């Protein structure tokens, strides 16, 4: 060690050699291809933007119109309601599917088989038209007249039909996502928890599911983003959500493409917000799994701005050897 410190290459008294200052590799082709892509994109946008029959003033006019804003509220409500049903029921179905009890696992298998195997559009339409075959719905004790019932049309409103169709279908997909997450947790975890005397339910709820979240969350984010757009299928039940509203306006004003743009701008805006939200949720559930949390979108943006050429710098408190990401 002392030889190095007194060697000719180290100029400082501390014995630490000078930090390397090298000319970074220049990526000329990145610049060239980047410019080409930008040109093509500009041409495409320009073609649409200057299309002779495209009335942009209508796009801006309807973008914040009261009808459209009402539609957005309903779209968001449908998304939340369907995802809540999907996630809660999905977790239950996944736990049932993995249960050693053959009755519960078969029920779950059958549910997933049925709801994944039929189109969600058909399911929404089915709930919407339920009143045709069952004018009254009720609960009661079989083979007696004890119970309560109500008109199907009152119970299953169009919004309800959409929520049921979307939510019950989503549960089947969520069940598979949750199941994959549960299976990904190492068996030793279950064993250690059982050895402490935890019940099956406690092991699932306190040990397995929190760890499964890391695997469950990214696809659930995808599902939510996808759901936000799939709510437009509520159109078939005449639910006045964003797309239905855009379509209604278009059919009275004949500004069809303009209103498709209005709807698309809003869908894009909303899915972008969800994408950012997903990022922060994933960071939360990565605690204990990674030594250093991944940067937030904001941190990444800042890093990109200030280190255009060089590799991103390591945070000051993290040693290079600890920088491993799983």
């Amino acid at each position, binding site marked *: 060690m002392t030889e190095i410190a007194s060697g000719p290459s180290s100029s400082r008294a501390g014995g630490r050699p000078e930090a390397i200052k090298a000319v970074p590799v220049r990526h000329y082709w990145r610049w060239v291809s980047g410019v080409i892509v930008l040109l093509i994109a500009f041409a495409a946008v320009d073609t649409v933007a200057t299309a002779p029959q495209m009335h942009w003033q209508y796009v801006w006019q309807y973008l914040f119109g009261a009808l459209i804003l009402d539609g957005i509220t309903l779209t968001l409500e449908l998304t939340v309601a369907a995802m809540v049903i999907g996630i809660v029921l999905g977790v239950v179905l996944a736990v049932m599917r993995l249960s050693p009890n053959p009755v519960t696992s078969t029920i779950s298998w059958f549910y997933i088989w049925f709801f994944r195997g039929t189109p969600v559009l058909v399911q929404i339409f089915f709930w919407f038209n339920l009143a045709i075959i069952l004018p009254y719905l009720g609960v009661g004790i079989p083979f007696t007249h004890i119970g309560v019932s109500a008109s199907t049309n009152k119970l299953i409103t169009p919004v309800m039909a959409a929520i049921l169709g979307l939510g019950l279908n989503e549960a089947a997909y969520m069940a598979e996502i949750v199941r994959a997450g549960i299976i990904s947790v190492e068996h030793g975890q279950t064993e*250690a928890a059982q050895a402490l005397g935890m019940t099956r339910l406690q092991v699932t709820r306190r040990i397995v599911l929190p760890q499964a979240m890391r695997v469950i969350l990214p696809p659930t984010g995808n599902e939510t983003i996808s759901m936000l757009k799939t709510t437009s299928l509520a159109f078939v039940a005449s639910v006045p959500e964003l797309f239905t509203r855009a379509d209604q306006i278009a059919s009275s004003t004949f500004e069809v493409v303009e209103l498709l743009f209005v709807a698309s701008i809003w869908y894009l805006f909303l899915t972008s917000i969800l994408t950012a939200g997903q990022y922060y949720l994933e960071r939360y559930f990565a605690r*204990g799994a990674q030594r250093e949390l991944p940067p937030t979108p904001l941190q990444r943006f800042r890093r990109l701005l200030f280190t255009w050429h060089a590799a991103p710098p390591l945070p000051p408190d993290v040693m290079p050897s600890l920088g491993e990401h799983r």
Partner: protein
Amino acid sequence: MAGGAMVKAEEVHKSFGRLEVLRGINLEVQPKEVMCVIGPSGSGKSTFLRCINHLEKIDAGRLYVDGELVGYQQRGNKLYELPDREVCRKRSEIGMVFQRFNLFPHMTALQNVAEAPLHVKGESRAAAEARARKLLERVGLADKVDVYPNQLSGGQQQRVAIARALAMQPKLMLFDEPTSALDPELVGEVLDAMRGLAEDGMTMIVVTHEMGFAREVGDTLVFMDGGVIVESGTPREVLANPRHERTKLFLSKVL
């Protein structure tokens, strides 16, 4: 029926499908005794520990912990399987430490240790955390209370795992090769923690390849091979004068 023994095995058999892993285990562990178990890989050591802790069901024979039958209830001449709730209660009275630590990675050291007292025993948070802190201090980790397992060395993780098992105030501790996954320089700190436990009078069954530990801390040493106990005695006897060929062969390889 089982006298005062903490663990008593009579002709314990266990098969996985066609593979007979335990083929008649007989042994007794007295309260406060430290029994070390050695034997080649695949001889059924882990399976036997797992049977004691109800993680596996035995097929034949009788296994008692603290005088109570493991896994079953005897009423008259008939055996009845224990309901899940009873199994959980019995497991909670036995501590187990695994080769791969199996700490809960989403919880800090303190949360790992306080988890079972809080949610299995239903203790108050204050009481559970206070004892968790004491236990972590006892295994030399007072400064690692709020750290997640992946920021701890293997030796530190295993000591948290020991504290976690102790938090349930078990009457029996099972160790399944607790130092086998550790770098050599970290083995000592875990063995020290175990030695301390033994000195405090804990009843322990330790599957290990650390002959030094077995000789110093163990009251009895058992050599298992092919699902049976080939030889047992005081560690000094067995290590110095093995009587069976298979024991000699095994010891010549590991010593």
